[in-house]
């Protein structure tokens, strides 16, 4: 409960700044409309108008919230305008991509830690892969895969995996190398095999690092999926929702899709956090 006051303070500050920013952003439109209708707007009327336009440059917080509410709670999930429907499309691709990415990341990390050749050969490519803008490579992945006949959830999941494997590789390499020299010496005095050292020492020691990476990785996976939905002319998913909003100047729709994505990311990271706490407590490492 101690945390709630600072959090609420920050939220309140953001809301205030947001409302304040909406006034200058949207006032030009309000003034133009008034001029055309040949009426004078008082300052009060002007401000109220900037907070209630249908297609504002910057929608006010209550507009976004009511759109969010309207397109989730008050709409049937099967509707093409339901954010829960679109969110589920995005979430399923995210989870698949995250599973891919995490698996690949762990495998690469195990290889990198155990083989000097892989350490030298793979790590630079992993880093290089992340320097390419995902926005540039996403359409190519989709085009290439669709020409091979792969469409639907898989291409999005691959883009999502492309972003999420990297933090897992970096974190797991660090984690698998975290045992101290005398931890490894102890294993040597037992004449332990490499696989025994891996299962009994390296892997458990890497768990805190793995969970830290997973938190970054799942957020990156969500971003990857949304980016994968943008350039494809997809009609379903949070990314498609943002894109169609921008086609038709539906700024409220864009913002509510953005918030839906942010809330989804927060929930996913939160779930990993809970699993992390439970696991590490059971392992006696959460002191």
């Amino acid at each position, binding site marked *: 409960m101690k945390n709630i006051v600072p959090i609420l303070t920050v939220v309140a500050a953001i809301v205030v700044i947001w409302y304040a920013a909406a006034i200058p952003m949207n006032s030009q439109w309000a003034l133009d409309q008034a001029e055309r209708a040949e009426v004078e707007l008082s300052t009060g009327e002007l401000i109220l108008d900037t907070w209630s336009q249908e297609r504002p440059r910057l929608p006010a917080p209550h507009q976004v919230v009511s759109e969010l509410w309207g397109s989730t709670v008050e709409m049937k999930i099967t509707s093409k305008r339901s954010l829960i429907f679109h969110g589920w499309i995005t979430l399923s691709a995210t989870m698949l991509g995250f599973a891919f990415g995490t698996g690949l990341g762990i495998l690469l990390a195990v290889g990198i830690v155990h083989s000097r050749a892989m350490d030298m050969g793979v790590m630079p490519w992993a880093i290089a892969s992340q320097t390419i803008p995902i926005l540039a490579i996403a359409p190519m992945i989709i085009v290439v895969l669709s020409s091979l006949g792969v469409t639907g959830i898989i291409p999005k999941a691959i883009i999502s995996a492309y972003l999420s494997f990297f933090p897992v590789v970096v974190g797991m390499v660090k984690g698998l190398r975290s045992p*101290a020299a*005398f*931890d490894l*010496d*102890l*294993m*040597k*005095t*037992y*004449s*332990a095999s490499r696989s*025994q050292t891996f299962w*009994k*020492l390296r892997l*458990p*020691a890497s*768990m805190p690092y793995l969970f830290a990476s997973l938190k970054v990785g799942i957020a990156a996976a969500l971003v990857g999926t949304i980016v994968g939905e943008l350039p494809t002319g997809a009609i379903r998913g949070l990314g498609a929702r943002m894109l169609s909003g921008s086609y038709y100047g539906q700024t409220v729709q864009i913002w509510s899709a953005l918030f839906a994505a942010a809330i989804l990311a927060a929930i996913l990271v939160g779930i990993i956090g809970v699993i992390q706490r439970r696991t590490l407590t059971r*392992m*006696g*490492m959460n*002191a």
Partner: protein
Amino acid sequence: MSTNPVIEAKGLDLTFETNDGPVHALKGVDLAVDKGDFVSFIGPSGCGKTTFLRCIAGLEHPTGGTLTVNGMTPDEARKSRAYGYVFQAAGLYPWRTIAGNVRLPLEIMGYPKSEHAGRIEKVLDLVDLKGFGKKFPWQLSGGMQQRASIARALAFDADIMLMDEPFGALDEIVRDHLNEQLLDLWARTEKTIAFVTHSIPEAVYLSTKIVVMSPRPGRITDVIESPLPKERPLDIRDSKEFLDVAHRVREGLREGHSYD
């Protein structure tokens, strides 16, 4: 009983090649340790005492001379589980309970599962940690953790215990207590113990044989057979014999060490 020494070094050299030229960590080390001995290695930093212990364990490999453990090479001896090693840090795995940590070598060495519980109970009893098996390491004090790590080294049937400053990080009161317990343990288990320390009183109190070493190059300057009886209450440290041995150790250290 065989009269062959348990650990025997002859003309042992170990030279590390570094960018600043060769470093002679050990030079011409001759030593024989008999079964049931309690040998302490004492000397200033860089005298090679820890390096010598690591050579016995097969963690470092000498560049010259011969070294046998139970009549085998150190690597063979390690594979035949000749020794248990206790490090300066307890090094318990935080994700395992105390019993789980003691079980670690049993799992790795493939002892049958049915023996685990009995062995764990026996060694936890030996180090006075009965009833702490289910605790995690962070729930124990530093001294208790170090006792658990000794239990871990005792869990399998090694005849030799190699101990590298096991009590170096503990305060003096705890250390006195653990020294007393270690002597008791040694008497009960009849193991051969090689013990590295910085502390003269600790070395004299514990050992049947004290090896004084000096650095640059790392070598043995004196080997003292202790005249003290095997039964040693803590107040033996005020006796004349004790002080005489301590004096001789101090002389040996001074001789091999120039402070300029």
